[in-house]
């Protein structure tokens, strides 16, 4: 602690904090303009000047001056006031002053400063500059005549987003924010809008819809990816108008511009019942009665195992928890799974095999009744935990790692906050980034090592890295207690590095250097995405990475962890609350009972016409036809199911196969929680009317009650309290945090993994079905979602040389054929892709990418013009 005085007040401040931090913490006002808490201070505008003794005879910027012992700081004096006034006049010299039509009016930092500093006249003159307003860029409007050249947007775009899409041109008085004289061609995250202190950058989705003081603001978690960003939703007259992140200003494009999808005209409004080959609208009572009656009829005829459930990585923890309770307690079966089985669950299983299942001790009930959505459990002093969740990293710790290996993930489209964390880490010179991918991705530009491997060869590459580490350092031992090491080493010994280099396409030298960097690291992090988990050998891939982490990881060091991407808002939560046949809530392995089939196994049963195949399917949302590989097969199999109930907000292709469709609430129409990729709890409060649809939890509870199960709940709060009581690992959990800290006991067991990487078929191209930056699952593909203006359809990414050989130009249609099917899609030339690899985003219904796939996100295809 440092002792100083500010305006005569004795103050204690943390060492290394700035005068501004110290003043703010003690409620002392110092005006600022170029400063923003999410950025490194640059001391450019000098509005925050203070007098400091001892110090130079001139005033210093409070935002960029660190506190020191015995400092005397004066924040206000005639001299300082005069400086600030003069600076303000310079800022205002030719400011547009169109506050009446400026969206920032009412929450503009320049308005506030002008008022606070009492600037009543500007008695300076300068030539008027031509305002190069930008009305043509998508989603963002630019008004240079309102810009105060604070550089906040340039810095967030460069230092946090890493897009470097906007910058200053010219200099001095003529300085102007620009994007190379062209309309914006960037990530369209809109972070620059939220960080701008004035109205120079305008959110087109919100423009002219309300004034800042008229709206109701509700803080909530974003409903799209697993990033768990929180933001304020602005509503007026029950309509969602805008989302703003006042804290870090960072959101991705789909988070910031995607929310209008809630008002999509495609939304289902009433329950639908199949009749005469079509659907007819039905009342809630009728639809729910029919579902309950039909379920009862089927269980009476074929047993309760004849109903199979598929939970949803979009639905809340409360809904998913009730869903598994419906099966486990109500029907007494374990006939359920969730679609994460094809990606994220692979990672959980791989990590669990190496690091074990979670075990927790030293947890007790809290004395007082907990607040809503707070865990009723707390940790004692002896609280201990072990198992794989301890090696799952937290995004806020990632910047503390010193080496990060990114493999099989195009970080920003998969999980934008991972990208922000990497950019923060990269500000330290001691941080090393190794990016391994089958194509050039955004972070290759900043990587210290770039490894380009052949599609699908990830685990062989990992084997090569392990082999070269163990060859270079035969005495190497993991930092945690690890079993099976000798056997593992023997296995790895069989790996031939030359062979690895040949098959993966990564030069031996690069493999060795990667191994050396990981060996030297004090806090290595391993990041991987659904690109790698979504292969048919996804489990083997994650085993390889878990083994690598067991070998080099230092679980005690902050940041040193594994970071698998949980793709959707509740991909992790749906697993944590037990929507899997083999795990009860809290990843407790099922014992003493037979787990039901997994989702792929269930499809196999249907295919075989097995007597154990389900007679009824209960789907908690999610367009399985669009998500799962081999669409034609899935379609054929789902059609075989005699009775299917789908809860969804949209009439998806999967819903069209159902007998009963129940329309659900989305986003802030419902209350509940999500678990983000890093295990923290995101709270969704209700802020929008439901207009006739119902939240998932209510529907499940009503069907359950009608079937005679004890499942009536008054609210998600009540469900959460019950759920959290059974989850000792959630002790201390509260909104925006991931629970209390446990003394971690990490141990592991090396598990051999398979290194055969052949991809079946002989077609000349390899297709990767993956993620687009502007979309999250299929949720964002409905008008009027804002990001549709950037990416409105699927395009096949193709290397320009390949395109030329095929006689294809940008926008031409290509016919893509695999062993499974054929689609027609326009191409887009993508130099980032190596020759022979093509890319198709998975989100859109037309053309359906999964028509081509077999059992993996990689498939061999032929491409022709037309």
């Amino acid at each position, binding site marked *: 602690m440092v002792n100083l005085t500010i305006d005569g007040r004795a103050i204690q401040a943390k060492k290394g904090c700035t005068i501004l931090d110290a003043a703010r913490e003690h409620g002392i006002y110092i005006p600022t303009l170029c400063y923003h808490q999410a950025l490194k201070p640059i001391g450019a505008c000098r509005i925050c000047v203070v007098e400091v003794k001892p110090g130079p005879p001139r005033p210093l910027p409070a935002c960029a001056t660190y506190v020191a012992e015995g400092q005397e700081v004066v924040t206000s004096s005639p001299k300082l006031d005069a400086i600030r006034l003069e600076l303000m006049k310079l800022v205002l010299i030719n400011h547009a002053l169109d506050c009446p039509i400026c969206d920032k009016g009412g929450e503009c930092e320049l308005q506030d400063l002008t008022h606070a500093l009492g600037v009543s006249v500007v008695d300076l003159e300068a030539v008027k500059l031509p305002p190069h307003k930008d009305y043509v860029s998508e989603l963002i409007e630019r008004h240079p005549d309102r810009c105060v050249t604070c550089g906040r947007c340039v810095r967030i775009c460069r230092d946090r987003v890493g897009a470097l899409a906007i*910058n*200053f*041109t*010219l*200099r001095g008085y003529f300085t102007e924010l620009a994007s190379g*004289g062209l309309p914006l061609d960037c990530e369209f995250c809109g972070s620059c809008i939220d960080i701008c202190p004035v109205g120079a950058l305008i959110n087109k989705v919100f423009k002219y819809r309300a004034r800042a003081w008229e709206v109701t603001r509700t803080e909530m978690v974003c409903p799209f990816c697993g990033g768990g960003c929180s933001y304020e939703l602005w509503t007026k007259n029950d309509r969602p108008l805008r989302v703003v992140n006042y804290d870090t200003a960072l959101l991705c494009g789909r988070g910031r511009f995607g929310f209008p999808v809630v008002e999509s005209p495609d939304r289902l409004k009433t329950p639908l019942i199949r009749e005469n080959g079509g659907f007819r609208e039905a009342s809630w009572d009728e639809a729910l009665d029919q579902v309950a009656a039909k379920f009862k009829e089927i269980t009476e005829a074929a047993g309760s195992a004849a109903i199979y459930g598929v939970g949803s990585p979009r639905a809340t923890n409360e809904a998913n928890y009730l869903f598994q309770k419906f099966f486990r307690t109500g029907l007494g079966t374990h006939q359920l799974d969730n679609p994460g089985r094809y990606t994220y669950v692979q990672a959980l299983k791989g990590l669990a095999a190496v690091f074990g299942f979670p075990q927790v001790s030293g947890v007790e009930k809290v004395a007082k009744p907990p607040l809503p959505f707070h865990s009723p459990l707390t940790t004692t002093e002896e609280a201990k935990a072990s198992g794989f969740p301890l090696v799952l990293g937290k995004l806020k710790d990632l910047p503390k790692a010193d080496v990060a290996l990114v493999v099989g993930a195009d970080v920003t489209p998969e999980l934008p906050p991972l990208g922000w964390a990497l950019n923060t880490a990269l500000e330290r010179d001691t941080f090393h980034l190794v990016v391994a991918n089958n194509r050039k991705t955004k972070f290759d530009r900043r990587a210290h090592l770039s490894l380009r491997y052949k599609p699908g060869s990830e685990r062989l590459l990992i084997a090569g890295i392990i082999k070269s580490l163990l060859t270079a350092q035969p005495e190497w031992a993991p930092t945690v207690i690890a079993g099976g090491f000798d056997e593992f080493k023997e296995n790895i010994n069989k790996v031939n590095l030359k062979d690895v280099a040949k098959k993966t396409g990564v030069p031996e030298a690069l493999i060795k250097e990667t191994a050396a960097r990981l060996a030297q690291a004090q806090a290595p992090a391993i990041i991987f995405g659904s690109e790698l988990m979504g292969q048919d050998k996804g489990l083997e891939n994650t085993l390889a990475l878990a083994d690598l982490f067991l070998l080099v990881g230092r679980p005690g060091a902050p940041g040193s962890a594994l970071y698998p991407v949980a793709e959707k808002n509740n991909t992790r939560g749906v697993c944590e609350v037990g929507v899997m046949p083999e795990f009860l809530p809290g990843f407790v392995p099922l014992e003493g009972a037979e787990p039901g089939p997994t989702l792929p196994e269930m499809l196999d049963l249907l295919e075989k016409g097995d007597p154990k195949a389900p007679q009824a399917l209960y789907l908690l949302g999610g367009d399985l036809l669009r998500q799962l590989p081999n669409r034609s097969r899935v379609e054929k199999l789902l059609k075989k199911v005699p009775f299917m109930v789908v809860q969804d907000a949209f009439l998806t292709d999967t819903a069209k196969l159902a007998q009963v469709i129940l329309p659900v609430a989305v986003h802030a129409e419902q209350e509940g929680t999500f678990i983000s990729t890093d295990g923290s709890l995101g709270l969704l409060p209700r802020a929008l009317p439901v207009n006739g649809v119902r939240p998932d939890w209510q529907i499940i509870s009503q069907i359950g009650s009608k079937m005679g199960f004890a499942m009536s709940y008054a609210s998600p709060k009540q469900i959460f309290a019950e759920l959290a009581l059974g989850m000792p690992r959630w002790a201390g959990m509260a909104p925006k945090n991931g629970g209390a800290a446990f003394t971690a006991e990490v141990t592991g067991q090396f598990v051999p993994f398979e290194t055969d990487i052949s991809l079946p078929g002989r077609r000349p191209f390899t297709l990767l079905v993956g993620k687009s930056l502007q979309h999250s699952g299929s949720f964002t593909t409905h008008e009027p979602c804002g990001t549709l203006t950037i990416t409105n359809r699927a395009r096949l990414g193709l290397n320009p040389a390949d395109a030329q050989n095929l006689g294809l130009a940008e926008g031409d249609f290509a016919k893509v054929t695999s062993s499974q099917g054929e689609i027609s899609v326009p191409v887009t030339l993508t130099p980032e892709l190596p020759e022979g690899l093509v890319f198709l985003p998975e989100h859109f219904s037309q053309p359906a990418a999964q028509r081509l796939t077999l059992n993996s996100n990689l498939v061999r295809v032929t491409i022709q013009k037309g």
Partner: protein
Amino acid sequence: MDQERLDTILSRYEGDAADLIPVLQDIQDQYSYLPKDELKVVAQKLNVPLTRIFSVATFYKMFSLIPKGRHQIRVCLGTTCHLRGGPRLMESFSHRLGVEPGYTTKDMQFSLETVGCLGSCAQAPVAMIDDKYFGRLATDKVPKILKLYKN
């Protein structure tokens, strides 16, 4: 776009981001401005975002994004020259050529611009045409000098 001409320039460098300014200087010398299409290629080759190139290209006076004339006239308006008739000299050039400072004549022969101090204050007022200095320049000499360059 003249790909070959640009490649010749680029081939002289390693292709590092640090080469940006020298590459831009070469392009400016050869093309007498920085054409947009060429800049896009430079961005790709040097792995520098286009917005950064524009930032640099507009910050320094030696670069121009619009085609410059065959001859560059720089009239000094540094402190000394300012006091000793620089502005009048400027006006005279501007009047004779029919362009404002910062612009190029229609026939693409002359570009006119102002600079701050050419480092020859003893000779004030000073102007420079291409690489040649003209000191103690009175306005009546302007037509004669311009004639030297007109052909």
